[in-house]
């Protein structure tokens, strides 16, 4: 469904990604793990169109995405849950979700999407009128994911969903992502919390200093000695 | 490096000798324009001391007006020599800068807020001048009382334009010197750090308020001095030409156009905008009132959109690019 080939990208004279290639098949859940500063966030911003690659191709369902602006890419079915949630703090839960369905196609199915999100995340239904800025970290992450679902996406990009959350919340959030996954959505997660995310996904890539160092099935990667030592404290 | 010095010296030489070069009928006019350029460049230089560090003031008209009106009114009413009047004018401007600066900087008023607060200050001064029309002359302005034919050093009024020419040139050079001293000082690094990240600067021990206040005081004092000089030369003060948003914007425009971060930027910008304004005025004269300014405004907009780093900056960037060395990341 989504394929990156030979992507090189960065900011100004700084190159964050070197010749990165990865694939996500429909229905899969794929993770990109790696240490801080590896380029994981850059990768997602690239796919969703916030930055442009210097070279390489991004193909989504046969369409070349590399030169399109962000709002266009969303129309293709790519939903991005940004790092730090980036909710609209002054708007209510309901309004945030409404904004998620901004696209004309999504707006037409607004009621249906809203139903689905409220069924999946009943807490959001309870707090419809609450200002997003006043919610807890975990609830905000829930809202951010729900908001992404409102755009009728074909693939959901999640940028560091566990960032800044207490350990209990982290487990809950990964549970949420699992539920979304079970609904049939294709997912690409970027995470620092290797242990938790490998339990969740089918395949994973290891990104270090802008290059893909390893890739494989999640279970296999979890077995790798140096992965365990470096990232899981074993 | 020494080629630059030689060039500077040559230019200076030309400027010093210029008033004695026979120019026929246009000499008075040329001197007049030159004096204006020197005075306004000096004022622009003073403004840029704040502007280059991110303290964008849209209210320098306040200091200008205070400077000009203080000396003029003290002379007209009390026959106080402008020498002392100037000291008082500068003191008044500094007082305003301190009274407003301390709370402003302590409470971290920056960016758009700071620009609009300074705009308010400029307007307050302008309105005060108009409101107190009994002794300021209001919107009609006030003329500098002349002492018959007794012009001279005591009254700082001179019949011969050339005296003003050398005075303004000297003041302008002094302004360059001050700018240069600031540029080389520790204060510059401190202020640049503050401009980039105030909190970080404060956390390494830089006394943010003290530095900001310091540069503001210097800027205000010099601007007031420029106002004094202007008032003495033109012999007429008016709230709209010397305070308020109009004149404040003009100062900022000239500096940004010329290049806010360079020594000669204010001069380049002021010279160009003055030449432009004069050229337009000559072309249109009184025939089409307002047409000259309309084109002037239009050109300013176009310049800002297409030459964001000013003329000086753009030329320097072009030269840098031509010489191939691009070890700075594109902005």
């Amino acid at each position, binding site marked *: 469904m989504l394929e990156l080939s030979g992507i090189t990208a960065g900011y100004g004279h700084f190159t964050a990604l070197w010749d990165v290639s990865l694939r996500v098949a429909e229905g899969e859940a794929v993770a990109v793990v790696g240490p801080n500063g590896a380029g994981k966030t850059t990768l997602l911003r690239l796919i969703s169109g916030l930055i442009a690659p210097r070279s390489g191709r991004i193909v989504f369902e046969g369409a070349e995405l590399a030169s399109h602006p962000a709002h266009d890419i969303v129309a293709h079915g790519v939903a*991005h849950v940004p790092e730090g949630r*980036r909710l609209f703090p002054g708007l209510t839960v309901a309004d945030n979700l409404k904004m998620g369905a901004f696209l004309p196609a999504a707006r037409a199915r607004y009621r249906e999407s809203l139903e689905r999100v409220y069924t999946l995340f009943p807490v959001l239904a309870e707090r419809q009128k609450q200002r997003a800025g006043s919610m807890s970290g975990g609830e905000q992450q829930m809202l951010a994911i729900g908001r992404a679902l409102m755009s009728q996406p074909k693939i959901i990009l999640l940028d560091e969903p566990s960032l800044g959350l207490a350990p209990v919340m982290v487990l809950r959030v990964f549970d949420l992502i699992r539920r979304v996954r079970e609904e049939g959505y294709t997912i690409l997660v970027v995470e620092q919390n290797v242990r938790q995310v490998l339990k969740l996904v089918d395949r994973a890539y290891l990104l270090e200093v802008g290059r893909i160092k390893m890739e494989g099935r999640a279970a296999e990667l979890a077995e790798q000695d140096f992965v365990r030592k470096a990232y899981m404290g074993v | 490096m020494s080629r630059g010095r030689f060039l500077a010296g040559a230019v200076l030489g030309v400027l010093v000798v210029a008033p004695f070069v026979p120019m026929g009928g246009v000499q008075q006019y040329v001197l007049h324009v030159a004096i204006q350029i020197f005075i306004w460049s000096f004022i622009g230089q003073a403004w840029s001391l704040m502007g280059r560090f991110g303290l*964008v003031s849209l209210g320098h008209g306040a200091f200008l007006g205070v400077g000009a009106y203080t000396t003029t009114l003290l002379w007209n009413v009390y026959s106080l020599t402008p020498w002392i009047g100037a000291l008082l004018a500068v003191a008044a401007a500094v007082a305003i800068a301190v009274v407003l600066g301390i709370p402003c900087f302590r409470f971290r008023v920056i960016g758009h807020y700071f620009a609009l607060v300074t705009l308010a200050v400029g307007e307050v001064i302008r309105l005060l001048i108009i409101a107190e029309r009994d002794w300021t002359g209001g919107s009609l302005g006030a003329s500098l009382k002349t002492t018959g034919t007794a012009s001279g050093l005591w009254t700082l009024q001179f019949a011969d334009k050339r005296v003003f020419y050398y005075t303004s040139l000297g003041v302008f050079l002094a302004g360059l010197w001050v700018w240069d001293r600031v540029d080389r000082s520790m204060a510059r690094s401190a202020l640049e750090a503050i401009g980039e990240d105030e909190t970080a600067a404060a956390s390494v021990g830089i006394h943010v308020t003290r530095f900001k206040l310091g540069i503001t005081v210097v800027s205000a004092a010099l601007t007031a001095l420029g106002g004094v000089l202007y008032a003495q030369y033109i012999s007429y003060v008016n709230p709209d030409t010397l305070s308020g948003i109009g004149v404040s914007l003009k100062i900022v425009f000239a500096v940004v156009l010329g290049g806010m971060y360079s020594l000669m930027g204010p001069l380049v910008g002021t010279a160009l905008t003055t030449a432009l304004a004069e050229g337009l005025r000559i072309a249109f004269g009184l025939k089409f009132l307002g047409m000259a300014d309309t084109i002037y405004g239009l050109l300013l907009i176009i310049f*800002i959109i297409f030459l*964001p780093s000013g003329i000086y900056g753009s030329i320097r960037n072009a030269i840098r690019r031509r010489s191939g060395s691009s070890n700075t990341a594109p902005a």
Partner: protein
Amino acid sequence: MDPIFLVEAAINGILLGGVLALLALGLNLIFGVLDIVWIAYVELVMLCMYAVYFFNVTFGWPIWAAGLVSLAAGTLLGIAVHLLIISPILTSAPINQLLATGGLLFFLQSAATFLWTTDHKTVRLSLPSYEIAGIFLPATRIIPFAISILAVIALYVFLTRTYIGTAIRAVSQDRDAMSLMGANPQRIYIVTSAVGGLMAGLAGALLIFQYSVHPFFGGQFGPLTFMICVLGGLGNMVGAFIASFIMSEIISIGGVVISTEMGYVIAFVIFIVMMFVRPGGIMAKRG
């Protein structure tokens, strides 16, 4: 002084505040979304006032029709300013943005001088004046007030109940996030500028009731509008609304007690003082 004058001044202050609120809200709306202050905003109002003058006095249209022209003119001007001047400098340094709109101020003031001279132009409206308990309330003040309050309510409804209005609020809270929702930021900017321009047009149509128009009209109301916005907290709509009335009251009462200019001076001085007491504006949380 006879207290009746103070009461009258207080009421006039409220009536004036209504129209000032339109100016402040329009400017704030644009700032909240675009992070740019349109220094030439009141000059747009000035142009719309001229439009009303020409259509009503020169062409003989009825005042309400001329008012509609003003609304249209304002909207078009708002869009034009955005496309021609703001769009190219969206990513420039703030000082360049201030100067671009500042240059527009010069340009519009001079163009108006060139086209229509510095003569003050008035629209002659013979409207009744009402007397209640010794206080004179002319319709030329009441009608603009009523209309502006209606407009503020309409704006509120637009921003909270409509899709695009909510999107505008969303963009002002997080610009990038909104483009991740599939919203083309340029389109939202244009709508915002159009609404801001519409409010300028409405303000112009209402101000011509009481004030004559001339090229330097902006000098009277421009700085005042900026100050109201900052006082209320730049970008804060509720704050701007409240601040409009605070400033208009000070100006009105000060104008009656001392003089018109001093009324403004006091208002501006109080603004400066308020900046130090609450730098974020009156609606900001302390600290």
